[in-house]
């Protein structure tokens, strides 16, 4: 059997950036993210979680969700969302948002956004609003294209700029180093470990 046959994993996430991040992490753990569900925000993800968990009785699944301010930390959040995870369910919570995982590779993010590394906060999991931090970093970018893509216009009424997600997708896909970021973000470190376990412990039925 060729050595590059990878375990296909199904996944569910909140949005497009999350998808790219999880895809990257699954690939890195030796698997391949096959089908991706959700991507319609947190409310829909919560609604469908029961279905995903049911499917995870017989196949490997990863579900990633932002903690936001729903709980102080991840354990009570997990108990509330998914009290009984199925055997092959890898349910992961990003503290407090997936942006924190990207912020955790300070050096490469600073380079990608053209900002001084000192501007990237060292403890991303303590941030109150990582998405806002990301936008503010972009606001300080030396590059106009990055500012225009990621920072919302004055009257837009939105929290992010017009090409915010595609900029982050690009970063997560290419320059982001999960192994470096995991040193700054405990929730990312755990996510990588659990994914590796999920894949290495898998025995086809």
């Amino acid at each position, binding site marked *: 059997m060729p050595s590059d046959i990878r375990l296909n994993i199904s996944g569910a996430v909140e949005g497009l950036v999350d998808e790219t991040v999880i895809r990257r992490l699954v690939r890195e753990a030796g698997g391949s993210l096959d089908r991706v569900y959700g991507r319609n925000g947190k409310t829909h993800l919560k609604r469908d979680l029961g279905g995903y968990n049911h499917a995870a009785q017989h196949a490997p699944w990863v579900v990633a969700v932002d903690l936001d301010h729903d709980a102080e930390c991840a354990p009570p959040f997990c108990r509330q969302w998914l009290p009984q995870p199925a055997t092959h369910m890898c349910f992961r919570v990003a503290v407090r948002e997936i942006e924190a995982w990207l912020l955790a590779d300070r050096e490469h993010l600073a380079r990608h956004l053209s900002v001084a590394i000192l501007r990237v906060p060292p403890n991303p999991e303590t941030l109150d609003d990582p998405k806002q931090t990301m936008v503010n970093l972009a606001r300080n970018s030396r590059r106009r*294209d990055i500012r225009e893509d990621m920072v919302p216009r004055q009257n837009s009424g939105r929290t992010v700029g017009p090409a915010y997600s595609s900029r982050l997708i690009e970063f997560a896909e290419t320059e982001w180093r999960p192994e470096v970021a995991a040193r700054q973000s405990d929730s990312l470190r755990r996510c990588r470990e659990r994914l590796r376990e999920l894949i290495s412990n898998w025995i086809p039925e």
Partner: protein
Amino acid sequence: MRKTENKALRFTRIHLENWRNFTQADAELQRRVFLVGPNASGKSNLLDVFRFLKDIASVGGGFQEALRRRQGVSRLRSLAARKKPDIRICAHIGNDENPIAWAYELSFTQDKQRHALIKSERVSRNGIEILNRPDEKDQSDPERLVQTHLEQVYANQEFRDVSDFFASVRYFHIVPQLVREPDRSVGKQNDPYGGDFLEQIARTPENTQKARLRRIVEALRVAVPQLVDLELERDIKGAPHLRGKYEHWRSQGAWQTEEQFSDGTLRLMGLLWTALDGSGPLLLEEPELSLHPDVVRFIPQMFARIQRRYGRQVLLSTHSPDMLRDQGIGLDEVLLLLPENEGTNVRAAGTFTEVKELLAGGLSLPDAILPRTRPRNVEQLSFSFVD
């Protein structure tokens, strides 16, 4: 010099009176505009105003020709108008720094013999009026009022930029089957339905062509990450074909020709090509058609990035929640078309306090606005057939 100046120009505001189903409408226009509304609310009619101005200003066009293409004044006039009032169009052109660099206003009606007549035509630059018709000459020779000054090279000298700007508007509604079977549209040039899309690419000078195809691959990367290269080649008969190189993790990558592209990919390529071809406002009718919802979600981002580079305005109509789900779409970029008894109302999503509150409470943009654009009496439709 003038070219770069033109590049940044866009429609910044449109005001309509008695135009098709808009008895009265007024809207500020951003660089991206998403027109959202129920069927028959007038999305295409709103886009048609910009095509109308283009038709007046274009070579081979003119005021009378633009009306003929629309079957005359009475077809254009709002059905809600009880008397026969004038149709009035006022467009502001500018950019973020100077939103009213130019204002162009045209009102017209028809006489008893159904001849279209201009009632007034005004142009101002930076608030200073440079044309105000009817003038003395028009009064002494009413025959002059069958043509706009906009369409006349000798009369529009002082506001040629406005005329050039209107003429630069492009309308686009690509149909993938036409791209595949170009015979159906032989001889058509700049066909808005995409019939000569591949020929258009082939006619472009090689360097520009390569640069654009490279940008298309770049823009597509977010949605079609396996596509690494695109090029145009001709078959033995000389017919142009697009082929793309896909990277697979198992092999060295493989080339596919356009017959193997999905309708969606081809349509998306057509869209992006058009977005890169030219600098005037781009009108797109439901670009989501025949695209997979996953790909539709990237359209706003793709246009945002192309726009940032070229400043080109894009006005598109859409029904797609997937398109509107993008978090980067500004509330001032979304115009809701709301049918009322007296004609359709146009309002930016951001002018509704409730929409803002729903978003702040965690709803997505489509969830917050689409209930508003639902036809009001949809549950009564079934009864109307019984009556």
